[in-house]
């Protein structure tokens, strides 16, 4: 039996993410990580406060970054323009990164399947770079940020639907070092 506590900050972040107006076209992406958090948000009856492990989001951890800043931004088809929603997420990423200056990111650009392989590799590189540039403009040291393009090689939703494509067009900010464990 686990007791799951979610910090006040995390709850705010979840509701913020869930109520965000999503990427313009064609269908709003689901936000996978916050959804997972919500589904696990069940407080089981308490038997003992002292002997059970307590789940909480450690400040400065990878989970903290994903939950409270957001680790993915989404793009329109064949575009690397940052939407206002994407810029809002990146502002939170930058603030978080400025709080944890040892953290390094690998920013991966991803595309949906409706393009040819090499063109999508180039497009993914643009998306990753757009995120990097935005974070640098918000004060993150560029030496902390590496970019990579996976083109259409790493879809997170395997379906061939508008909803899947809009999730698969993203830039993912993965912490590679420096996080609190």
């Amino acid at each position, binding site marked *: 039996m686990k007791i799951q506590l979610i910090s006040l900050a995390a709850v705010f972040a979840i509701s913020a993410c869930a109520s965000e107006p999503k990427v313009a076209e064609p269908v709003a992406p689901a936000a996978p990580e916050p959804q997972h958090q919500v589904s696990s948000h069940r407080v089981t009856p308490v038997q003992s406060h002292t002997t059970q492990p307590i789940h909480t989001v450690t400040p400065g951890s990878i989970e903290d970054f994903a939950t409270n800043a957001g680790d993915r931004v989404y793009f329109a088809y*064949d575009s*690397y323009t940052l939407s206002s929603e994407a810029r809002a997420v990146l502002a939170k990423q930058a603030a978080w990164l400025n709080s944890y200056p040892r953290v390094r990111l690998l920013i991966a650009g991803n595309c949906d*399947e*409706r*393009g*040819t*392989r*090499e*063109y999508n*590799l*180039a*497009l993914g*590189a*643009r998306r*990753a*770079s*757009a995120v*990097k*540039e935005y974070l640098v403009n918000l004060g993150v040291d560029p030496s902390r940020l590496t*970019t*990579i*393009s996976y*083109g259409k*090689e*790493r*879809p*997170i*939703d*395997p*379906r*061939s639907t508008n909803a899947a494509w809009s999730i698969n067009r993203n830039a993912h900010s993965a912490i590679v070092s420096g996080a609190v464990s």
Partner: protein
Amino acid sequence: MTIRKITLIIGIIVFGLASGANAALEIDITRGHLDPTPLALPDFSGSSVPERELGQKIAEVVRADLERSGLFRVLDPASYIEQQRNIDMQPKFAEWRVIKADALLAGRVVIEDENRIRVDMRLWDVFAESHLLGQQMGTTPENWRRIAHKIADSIYQKLTGESGYFDTRIVYIAESGPKTNRTKRLAIMDQDGANSTFLTPGSYTVLTPRFSPTAQQITYLSYSTMVPSVFLFNIETGRQEVLGDFPGMTFAPRFSPDGKKVIMSLVQNGNSDIWVMDLRTRTRTRLTSSPAIDTSPSFSPDGSKIVFNSDRGGSPQLYIMNVDGSDIHRISFNKGRYSAPVWSPRGDLIAFTKQLKGKFHIGVMRPDGQGERILTTAYLDEGPTWSPNGRVLMFSREARPGSGPQIWSVDLTGANLRKVITPGDSSDPAWSPLIE
């Protein structure tokens, strides 16, 4: 992975018969929907059971090659009145005419010793009653399939006047696993799907392999390093190396027609431009410097021009430039998004992938952008590669959403669309030149 040499002695076998007026049987492969030429091809003969068994297997591979070309229809061996047991004898042409064979191929296998087989073949024009071709080939026993492919190439060349494409190989990406966590390995196989072998372990992703003009090297994109990079793979030695010390991700590699250079895209600050690397000196030269995507470069066969993909006009389209990067001009002007251009080895056409109204197509156009023809349509067709004679294209096809990709082939005429048999899902085919 060594490609062993096959000694090919083009037999100038002198027969008593007149081979003067032997131009009767000719196949025009430029036509769209032609009737396949009926061909009789009995099992190759032999004087022992092992020879006859090998003769049967070789004949089967030759038949399959010729049938797949769409230009030939091999008549059912059960219908043959005569079996042409001794290939040195003139056939009884009348008996082959009864079953309506236009041509007859007869062959013989000799196992000279445990390390060497010899195959003799004769091609006859049944109606002109003339001897068209005689050849003798020798190789090691395990190489028998290559003998069969060479025989198929010889028949193709004799009857169409153009070189064949059967003694060739395909490098491709072998795919497995779920779409969200796909394993992609470099693999190589014979043109007919036989002898498929993995060249990389699957612990890292590899994409877009292409052959060198000698078929001894492959260049491809590998994610085995921190920065995804263009690699070279030596088929003879199995050695892999990063190509160049570029300050960023490199991808979309292709050899120059003389094999001395590799052209590719380099990403700097998120922008992809086209660079060329000299393989001997390892010097690199930048060819494009636009803020747009410039990728998928492919040389013209004379090495003077490069076709590539760019979105400098607002959407992905095809452009041509000189090898020094000068005189960039757009060639694709019809409706749709164009990408992945590949120059034909004959020089007269450029194959491409086109997206229009939610479908993907393989098509061709002339280098001046005129004469566009769409050859295929599916949920996702992409990445064409030319047969060495410029008559057939292979490409990746995802027939329906979610169905794994498979390699398909289609004739330049748009006819003869068929799936290439691979052990599992497959994509990114690249056709080798004819093997020496």
